[in-house]
């Protein structure tokens, strides 16, 4: 046990804490120089989730492996119940109360998808991957949550689930042509997806295409967030000096747009620093993946790293106008418990995979 604690990847833990503290600083500034209401709770959550991650890192990997499908089905049921509450209850929602905690199952399901796929490919012999029939199960694992999230409707999360699936399937070694075919199918399903979109979501996409056309309406968010980033310049306006933020030009500055606040106050240097921290964190996941002797660990680490990557790229692209505003938070930085919980426990799983990387057979561990 002590040995395990000693061998934990402290670089990964340090990166998580550092990024979360930068997030707390941003939230402190977003509240106009106050720990309340966001920064303090952000830090409390960090502490709780880190403890949770330690526990997950130290428990037997066999346990995680065995319950991978169970976790997936449980989280799928949670997602379904959100859907049912939406249908029979008080209108659409993304949250559900579990033991007094309000959580977003759509954030958790990404982690259980990774677990389920990791187990599936771990169990599959390499020759069998080629078989078409072995594509059925992974696609089902991806499609069920995807469909449920689309129906919520949460465009951003649905998109990130699809991307996560593609990246994991690619990493697991399925044939490139199948992969290309899959992407085609996805592209052709976009018009059908558009039909499911709520008017406000369509607005977001159109405002992305031409934000200046309606500067005070739909394009407002995007223009203001670009102004915040751009006016930060190289070195930024200084901590707590972001005028875009404290004059409330920045929309949702404590959640999805926190990156622009940091960009305004710390400039290009600040944004680059965050991006590099994330790249480093993802690199650590990839390094653990390569090092791992078993497929479960490999897919798990690569999946968690890819999940992180999707969050970061989507969020920054969104606030810098590279893609429509779809409501994806910046992991560990944005205020919000569910995404933070999902990210930290998934990194806890990666820590576990590293500790057990030398194993060849998980069931013997």
């Amino acid at each position, binding site marked *: 046990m002590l040995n395990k604690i000693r061998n934990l990847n402290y670089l990964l833990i340090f990166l998580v804490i550092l990024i979360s503290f930068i997030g707390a600083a941003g939230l402190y500034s977003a509240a106009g120089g106050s720990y309340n209401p966001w920064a303090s709770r952000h830090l409390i959550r960090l502490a709780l989730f880190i403890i949770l991650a330690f526990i997950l890192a130290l428990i037997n990997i066999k346990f995680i492996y065995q319950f991978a499908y169970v976790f997936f089905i449980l989280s799928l049921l949670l997602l379904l119940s959100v859907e049912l509450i939406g249908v029979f209850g008080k209108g659409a929602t993304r949250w559900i109360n579990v033991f007094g905690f309000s959580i977003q199952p759509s954030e958790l399901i990404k982690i259980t998808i990774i677990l389920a796929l990791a187990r599936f490919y771990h169990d599959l012999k390499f020759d069998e991957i080629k078989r078409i029939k072995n594509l059925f199960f992974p696609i089902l694992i991806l499609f069920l949550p995807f469909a449920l999230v689309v129906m919520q409707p949460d465009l951003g999360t649905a998109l990130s689930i699809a991307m996560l699936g593609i990246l994991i399937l690619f990493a697991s070694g399925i044939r490139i042509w199948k992969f290309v075919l899959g992407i085609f199918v996805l592209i052709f399903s976009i018009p059908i997806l558009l039909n499911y979109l709520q008017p406000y979501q369509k607005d977001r996409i159109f405002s992305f295409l031409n934000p200046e056309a309606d500067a005070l309406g739909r394009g407002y968010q995007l223009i203001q967030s670009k102004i915040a980033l751009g006016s930060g310049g190289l070195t930024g306006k200084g901590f707590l000096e972001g005028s875009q933020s404290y004059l409330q030009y920045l929309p949702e500055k404590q959640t999805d747009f926190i990156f622009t606040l940091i960009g305004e106050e710390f400039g290009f240097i600040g944004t680059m620093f965050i991006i590099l921290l994330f790249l480093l964190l993802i690199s650590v996941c990839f390094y653990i993946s390569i090092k791992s002797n*078993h*497929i479960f660990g*490999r897919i798990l680490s690569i999946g968690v790293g890819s999940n992180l990557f999707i969050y970061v790229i989507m969020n920054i692209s969104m606030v810098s106008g590279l893609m429509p505003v779809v409501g994806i938070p910046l992991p560990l930085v944005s205020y919000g418990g569910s995404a933070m919980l999902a990210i930290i426990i998934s990194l806890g799983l990666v820590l576990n995979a590293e500790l057990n990387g030398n194993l060849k057979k998980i069931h013997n561990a």
Partner: protein
Amino acid sequence: MFYSEDKKQYSVLNRRTFLLYLLKVSFFSIVGWRLYNIQIKDSQKYKTLSKNNQIDVEIIYPLRGKIYDTNNKVLASNIKVFDVYIIPENTKNINKSLNELNQIIKINFSDRRKILELSKKVKKFQKIKVLENINWSQLEKIESNKLNIEGIFITQDYMRTYQFDNTVSHLIGYTNKPNREEVELPFISNMPNLEIGKDGIEKSFNPNLIGKSGQREIEVNSYGRVIREISRQDSQKGNDIQITIDLRIQQYALNLLKEHKAGSVVLMDINNGNILCMASTPSYNPNKIIQKPNKEYWDSILENELSPLTYRSIQGLYAPGSTFKMIVAIAGIIHGIIDTNTKHFCNGKIGLGDRLYHCWKNNGHGSMNVSDAIKESCDVFFYEISKKIGIDKISKVAEDFGLGKIYDIPLPNQKKGIVPSQDWKKKKYDESWYPGETLISAIGQGFVLTNPLQLAVMTSIIASNGKNVKPNIIKQNNEIEFEKLEKYQNAIQIIKRSMFKVVNETKGTAYNSRSVSAPFAGKTGTSQVRRITVAERESEDFRKKEVEWKKRDHALFVGYMPVENPRYAVSVVIEHGGSGASTAAPIAKEIFQFTKNLEI
């Protein structure tokens, strides 16, 4: 079963992992490049946008300069007034607040509806104007009930006010919002809501009185709410202006004019040209123009056929009548046509061509020299001498004595009047001059037209022994020395003696108005406004008859005081006053006595 040790699989996985990593690094590069473009390359653009987002510039209007009379009495200043606003977010029930306010100051129904409609449209922290320019006592009532009236907000403003209502209104003018053309004026610059002078001194001295605007940079948030003041540059108060008018005399003169429908009194200080009084009636009350609503008052002014907006002292043109005779006499003397001994016999009329020219005295004055002719205002004497002098020489003298001119004083729309000459008629009517017209002009009728200020200047030049007195309305500290018109010295002495006789000797036309306390000299004038028919002239008492006001003669008097070393010159014009002797001269007497009393 749970093994996964196939070498081939691992090499595929490693390759895929590497490709995936490359993909991720390249995506990060794209995002990095994007951020570089926004934060470094286009940073300046976004910095400007951020500033614009953030900063609003508010203009601080300057306080308009005051206007004082010669004794530092305030004639125009600014009073504090208050505007009452309501801020929707500060009241639970805007209707109730308006009801409470209505108990104190009536808010009319349509205004109320507008306020309520507006309160639904604007942002809830934006203030909506409910009442404008309320005064102290109304403010006190509101303040004492403030607890009951939720959400009200009071701001201070300034309103131009004129302490003496219509006493100096023509001269000072009034202020109002600029019209479309005036907005372009340079002194308005960035203050489209500035009240500017529309007439009189207020108009002429706009650039001095306005002062300089200040500005306040304020930080506003995305809802337009003001967060803080960033910088403030206070406005600069406009310059004060002191005019030469003595309010006491002005008020006294207006009081004397009260019993007449229309007229003017001008009093000048001969030594420096300062206009001490320039009263015109009817006048208007500028305070009633400034206070909104003013439509009713405006309409009443515009409908008044006496045209209260006309400043008769400089804009009213009158035939000078007999007050012009001094000019003719001076012309006769300097051209050697008459001297003190030259006599003409007046039998009441003379003939020229096929027309008869009458003296005002039907049976004639008998034998007259120049002194008697002025004293008794004999027309025939002047008919006779004007025939010999000719109109051009008369008009030259008239111009030297300040007639037919616009003066260099800062009052808009002065009327020039007419000093007729042969050239003038040729140009104006393309007709040659008829000898009979010289006769008519010699008694200040016909083409000759002057305004009351010109008559006062003429009298000043005579009284000062030919100093080229120029009128002045803005008080100056430096001594003014006017050049002397040497060639008129001898003639002026003769004329001044005659003018003394007009007032102070029996048979003088203004003898009834002589003053013991303030002896003065002068000349009456009565100018016809229509031709008198032969039938009327034959009826013995046509002058005494009650004639319709509009058809009555204008009454004029010009004079100076004291007789020796004169200091003051006056002109009095009463429209349709009857005769100069009966109506104008007594007013001049009162003015002189009042002015003399002030000196003690």
